[in-house]
């Protein structure tokens, strides 16, 4: 698998992502600078990692979505390439229109960093195939603006096409208001594009891929991509 991580000024989880990709996938990703007009040749996967691109002084991800490298990411996506956006990366994907919806300020208006439980809503994607459908996994969130919003029509389409990848729930899989850390519509934590090759998610699978870090809930996601792209 040939992968690249886009580094914007203010990106801060690129090393975490690179470590996870290297640990599970076996090959280190290339780092791509935000000002680059092109991505490396023959790339399978582009990752937009977490952080505060351009300081997120406008809406989170709004500036990142308008950076030079995003045109190249869009061309990669249009050509059927794989894209993973985590946290700020998801915000950028939503702002750029590669995924529907928007990420608003958390319901409680505070930054929140804690482990949450996710229910894997579909195993039918290159990002989730190593999970069992309905499996409950634990991974952390770390964000201020993770409150997923989309209009009814979009939500119906996402649900109807099985494009909700992950939903916040409790350890038994119950998705309710109390298990929703940020106020996201229908407890949605991650969604897929129509061709299922773009995944945007707020939680950080890259931060729980080893027992030493306290869990391995994020590991199957990287196993999935590695398998899909090998």
């Amino acid at each position, binding site marked *: 698998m040939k992968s690249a991580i886009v580094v914007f*000024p*203010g990106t*801060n*989880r690129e*090393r*975490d992502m690179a*470590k*996870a990709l290297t640990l599970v996938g076996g090959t280190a990703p290339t780092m791509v600078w935000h000002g680059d007009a092109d991505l490396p040749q023959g790339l399978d996967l582009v990752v937009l990692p*977490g*952080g*505060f691109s*351009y*300081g*997120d*002084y406008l809406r989170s991800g709004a500036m990142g979505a308008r950076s030079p490298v995003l045109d190249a990411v869009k061309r990669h996506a249009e050509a059927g390439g794989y894209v993973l956006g985590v946290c700020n990366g998801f915000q950028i994907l939503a702002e750029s229109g590669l995924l529907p919806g928007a990420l608003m300020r958390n319901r409680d208006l*505070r*930054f*929140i*960093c*804690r482990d949450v439980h996710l229910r894997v809503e579909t195993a039918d994607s290159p990002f989730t195939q190593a999970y069992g459908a309905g499996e409950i996994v634990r991974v*952390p969130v*770390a964000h*201020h603006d993770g409150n997923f919003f989309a209009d009814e029509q979009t939500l119906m389409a996402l649900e109807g096409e099985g494009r909700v990848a992950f939903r916040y729930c409790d350890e038994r899989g119950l998705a309710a208001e109390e298990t929703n850390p940020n106020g996201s519509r229908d407890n949605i934590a991650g969604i897929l594009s129509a061709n299922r090759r773009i995944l945007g998610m707020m939680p*950080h699978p*890259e*931060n729980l891929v080893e027992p*030493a*870090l*306290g869990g391995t809930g994020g590991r199957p996601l990287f196993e999935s991509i590695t398998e899909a792209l090998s």
Partner: protein
Amino acid sequence: MSTAVPITPEIVAEHGLTPDEYKKVLEIMGRAPNIVELGIFSVMWSEHCSYKSSKKWLKTLPTKAPWVIQGPGENAGVVDIGEGLTAIFKMESHNHPSFIEPYQGAATGVGGILRDVFTMGARPVANLNALRFGAPSDPKTRHLVSGVVAGIGGYGNCVGVPTVGGEVNFHAGFNGNILVNAMTVGVAPKDRIFYSAAAGLGNSVVYVGSKTGRDGIHGATMASAEFTAETEDKRPTVQVGDPFTEKLLIEACLELMATDAIVAIQDMGAAGLTSSSFEMASKGGMGVELALDSVPMREVGMSPYELMLSESQERMLIVLEPGKEEMAKAIFDKWELDFAVIGTLTDTGRMVLTWNGAVVGDLPIDPLAEASPEYDRPWEPTPKAADPDLSGAESVSWSKALVQLVGCPDMASRRWIWEQYDHLVMGNTLQRPGGDAAVIRLDDAPGKGLAMTTDCTPRYVKADPVEGGKQAVAEAWRNLTAVGARPLAITDNMNFGNPEKPLIMGQFVGACQGISEACLALEFPVVSGNVSLYNETNGQAIPPTPAIGAVGVLDDVDSSVSIAFKGEGETLVLLGGSAETEGSWLGQSLFLREILGREEGPPPPVDLSAERATGDLVRGLIGDGLLSACHDLSDGGLLAAAAEMAMAGSLGCALTLDGTADVARLFGEDQGRYLVTCPPETAEAILFRAKAAGVAVRTVGVTGGTALVVNGEAGPSIADLTGAHEGWLPTFMAG
């Protein structure tokens, strides 16, 4: 032009200089200073920058050990952690600004301490903090907690450095004067550490980072005076932070540091361009000429006075090797940061400031630095406290008292706070907040880890500054030991009241003495620090708070243990202290304050040789894999420690104590003790090793069940304890 301002006695007084100090200024200058020069004297001789009241006593602190590479005097302390790596760390206060404007005050505190650490070539790998707020009932407390926590998070989360630990106290003594102490730990290769001493006649002095604005002018002078009701008017002296720019500055500086272009580098902290340029030139025995009109400015119409005194954030001063300007500029251009050559090094020993070619300031560097006032202020020791009145203790129900204690403001869970800090970014956090010490692993040395903690018990220090100072160091050492780390060194953040009052000065002197004793006995030197005096509002001093930040190393990070009970049927063993006098100490205990409502008595004494023996034993047991959990005994004593371990593991325990289980035994805060668990078959080996080491040891119970049981008497369920423990802070903050 501002240099034409006449220097009247009023202007001198406004700059915080005493008439005697001004006389010295005249001697050094050989003439009356102009306003720019007066401003420079004012900040350089402020308590904050000159340490004039504290220097005499700071010099007495132990600062050496074989693993210490750099002690106090640089931007941060440096210790060797093996495998060619060093840990670089420091803690610094931002108390006054945080009270005036909690979000920005706390945020820029984090920004400043981060710069102190990456200035030396280290990538920051962890942040911690030590916070003291007023009583929960004070109308300002909720607003201050909310703002300070959001500010620390807002800055640390954005720069991408995990905030992994800290401590929080609430006490009426901090009403009107909170303490915000921020600590950063970084890691750098041993052969690539950068210092601040300027060198090389004719070398360029380069300014990088943010532009200079009018913010924070006279912040250092403000931090050197007491607060009054008018302090609110000083809000414009609080700086505004930009963590995004700081993040770029970290990356750009580390990129430049990977080349061989830097001779010296210094961040612009308190007193901005003035103190950074003075310190660099003074340490290197150089002169410096600065063209102030070349400084990147945020707005038009700024004066030389403002440029020299501005405390705008996210700025650094660098002395470059000749011919490296182009290459260095390219790096800062890439990161979209300002880069300007603003001066050159000279051999005149003077600082010459120009503005469009005209000289606007000309001062001798060494005389100003050397002649900075040093006071031997009169001091009085704190009188020994009388024994506490313990009446009423015999009728207390231990079960109810325990629930009350774990849910009281000083012991309640800090989850509401640390969940607002990104404590996982960088992907190396092995022990998250909530334990004795945070543990992170190191990217550059697989298998190795760093442990860190911040500690101080202000009520102990207030009752007996010497014992309290000792205890703060011992507790930090204990917390590192409890996760299996080898304690290396500390940074001290000395927060005290007005040193011109002999009793306050006596608190400072006593704390220094206690810290020294503990540092020597535990081989745990001071490598960096910060002093914050004048923490008084309307004449009321804070409880003395020498906050200790400490770092230890784990050579095998997998051997580390947490405080959580791991399984049913494990044996509980109590190590340390004295089995005979156990539980005698309720003076200044949390039990006495929270349950009996009295803040009385002397604090528990620290027996440093027993401390050392017990800690070394515990560390050895952890390293050999004999323990499954470990927790030091502190606030609330034995029963509180057992409750915390039970809550962390969601598992109860039954304690069996010889003789009567009176409250003094259960809640006494006798020092130097650890509660540990092990599989039953290992207990014998632990008892044997403890006896061989001359450390008091006794098995005190067994894990299991869903409640805490003492000598057969059932106490609170783990669910009830957790409810009280987790409930207080969110409920309080929800108002």
